[in-house]
């Protein structure tokens, strides 16, 4: 909306003419009919007194603010600007700290300060524009954005633990940027940083920050950022208002790169914070959340490297242990031992085969004997086949009975022989017993058989011992 500069002759033409007419009478014009500057200034003052009488309230945004004991500022709105002065008495009563970019309601009067040709508002009181309005507006926007899903937890993306290159979106020369650089140094400069400068306060801040976020995303082919750190130092609710506006919040939502915010130094959470992938209370804390700590990372790599070494050592140890166990097995200790069971099997097999051969020989002998018997019966002298068969049958039975008897006798003999061996004096002697004989060669069985002074001969396994009895002691068993 374009506005024309103040022109008394247009805006208040009648008044001007009226005033001029009165001046004509009051002041002396020079020969050429020209007004003096002070006369003109006087007319302007008069025009203001009549056109903008008394005190009024004006709403606008503070431009550059400077304070001595008084406060000087400009009050602006898009393409209109007017000076503002507040005397120390008014400043003392201010309930807030006026800053550039702040929207304010000013109560005051208009003044033309002739010495400097300045048209200015003399402010009697000033207050920030509707704090309550801002809170209500924020709640409204929060609801709207939430409904759009901009704050959904599912939207949040992680950022790399060790980012290589981080885009810092903030204003150049801001304290917040210094805080971020400080943390960057403290954590050992583990990544590259690129500043994407932007305004962070005032009416244009929202669109500028949004553009900066888009710029960081668009820079990907040249500057492949891992994430965006959006920071701004503390400020009043009005200062930080831009971070609730749709432009910034939407830019964060649409950012391909994860965005981590550190806005303000207060607990108050902006809508940009809610939409961000990560939010921290301050620029420093946000920076610490994004920049990896060199010492920490080196420590972790070291631990992993140790794990790797140990795992390899264990893998090799396990194998050498298994090898050692194999080497300790008896077979490996004395290879000949492995042959023992085999030899036993061979021996067993050998004696079984000898037995089988013997049995086969016996069977063959029997068959031969039987054939001989049959041959004898088939002798021309023997005619009758039936008788021959019966004879053959009884002969075979008799032979079997005889064989069984012989077998029994043989086994009894075998048993007796084994008892004989067990009872043989020699074998008893070998076990440590001995036989004692008296002078007549009779075995001494009782103590009474050997009177003191008698000569005895003791037979042991490998010889004889002669001895003389010194005493005898009878014991009842």
């Amino acid at each position: 909306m374009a506005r024309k500069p103040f022109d008394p002759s247009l805006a208040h033409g009648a008044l001007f003419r009226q005033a001029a007419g009165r001046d004509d009478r009051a002041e002396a014009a020079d020969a050429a009919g020209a007004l003096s500057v002070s006369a003109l200034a006087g007319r302007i003052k008069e025009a203001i007194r009549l056109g903008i009488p008394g005190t009024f309230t004006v709403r606008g945004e503070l431009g550059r603010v400077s304070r001595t004991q008084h406060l000087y500022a400009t009050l602006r709105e898009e393409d209109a600007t007017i000076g503002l002065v507040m005397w120390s008495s008014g400043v003392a009563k201010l309930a807030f700290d006026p800053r550039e970019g702040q929207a304010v309601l000013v109560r005051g009067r208009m003044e033309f300060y002739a010495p400097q040709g300045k048209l200015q508002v003399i402010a009697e009181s000033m207050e920030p524009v509707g704090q309550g309005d801002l809170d209500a507006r924020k709640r409204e926007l929060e609801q709207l954005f939430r409904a759009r899903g901009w704050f959904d937890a599912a939207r949040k993306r992680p950022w790399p633990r060790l980012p290589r290159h981080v885009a810092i979106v903030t204003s150049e020369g801001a304290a917040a940027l210094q805080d971020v650089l400080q943390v960057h140094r403290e954590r050992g400069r583990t990544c590259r940083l690129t500043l994407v400068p932007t305004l962070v306060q005032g009416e244009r801040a929202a669109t500028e920050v949004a553009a900066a976020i888009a710029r960081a995303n668009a820079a990907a082919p040249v500057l492949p950022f891992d994430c965006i750190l959006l920071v701004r130092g503390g400020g009043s609710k009005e200062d930080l208002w831009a971070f609730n506006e749709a432009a910034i919040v939407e830019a964060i939502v649409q950012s391909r790169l994860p965005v981590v915010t550190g806005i303000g130094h207060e607990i108050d959470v902006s809508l940009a914070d809610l939409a961000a992938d990560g939010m921290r209370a301050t620029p420093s804390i946000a920076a610490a959340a994004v920049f990896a700590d060199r010492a920490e990372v080196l420590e972790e790599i070291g631990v992993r490297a140790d794990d790797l070494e140990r795992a390899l050592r264990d893998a090799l140890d396990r194998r050498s242990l298994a090898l050692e166990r194999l080497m300790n097995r008896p077979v490996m200790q004395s290879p000949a031992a492995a042959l023992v069971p085999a030899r036993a099997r061979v021996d067993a097999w050998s004696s079984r085969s000898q037995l089988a051969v013997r049995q086969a020989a016996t069977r063959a002998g029997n068959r031969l004997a039987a054939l001989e018997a049959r041959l004898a019966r088939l002798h021309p002298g023997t005619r009758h086949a039936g008788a021959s068969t019966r004879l053959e049958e009884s002969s075979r039975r008799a032979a079997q009975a005889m064989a069984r008897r012989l077998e029994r006798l043989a086994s009894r003999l075998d048993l007796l022989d084994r008892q004989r061996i067990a009872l043989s004096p020699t074998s008893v002697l070998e076990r440590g017993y001995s036989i004692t004989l008296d002078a007549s060669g009779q075995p001494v069985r009782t103590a009474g058989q050997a009177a003191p002074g008698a000569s005895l001969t003791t037979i042991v396994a490998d010889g004889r011992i002669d001895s003389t009895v010194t005493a005898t002691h009878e014991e009842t068993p």
Partner: protein
Amino acid sequence: MSPAKPSKDTAPDDLSSITFEQAMEQLQQLVDRMESGQAGLKESLDDYRRGAALVKHCRALLKDAEDEIGRLSAGDR
């Protein structure tokens, strides 16, 4: 134990695209596999060589940032 002859898994350019997180994750898996005793001797040695390369890669990722801060202005786009 030095990776004298790089196996097919440890070609250096193979690692360049691996992020720090991926490298750490792979390291953990290698160690787990080696500890499980499932891997053969050759696999364990290959795992170790690959692991050593990953450790080196992780350390390289920490290379100092040379300039503290660059600047991306509207005109730089």
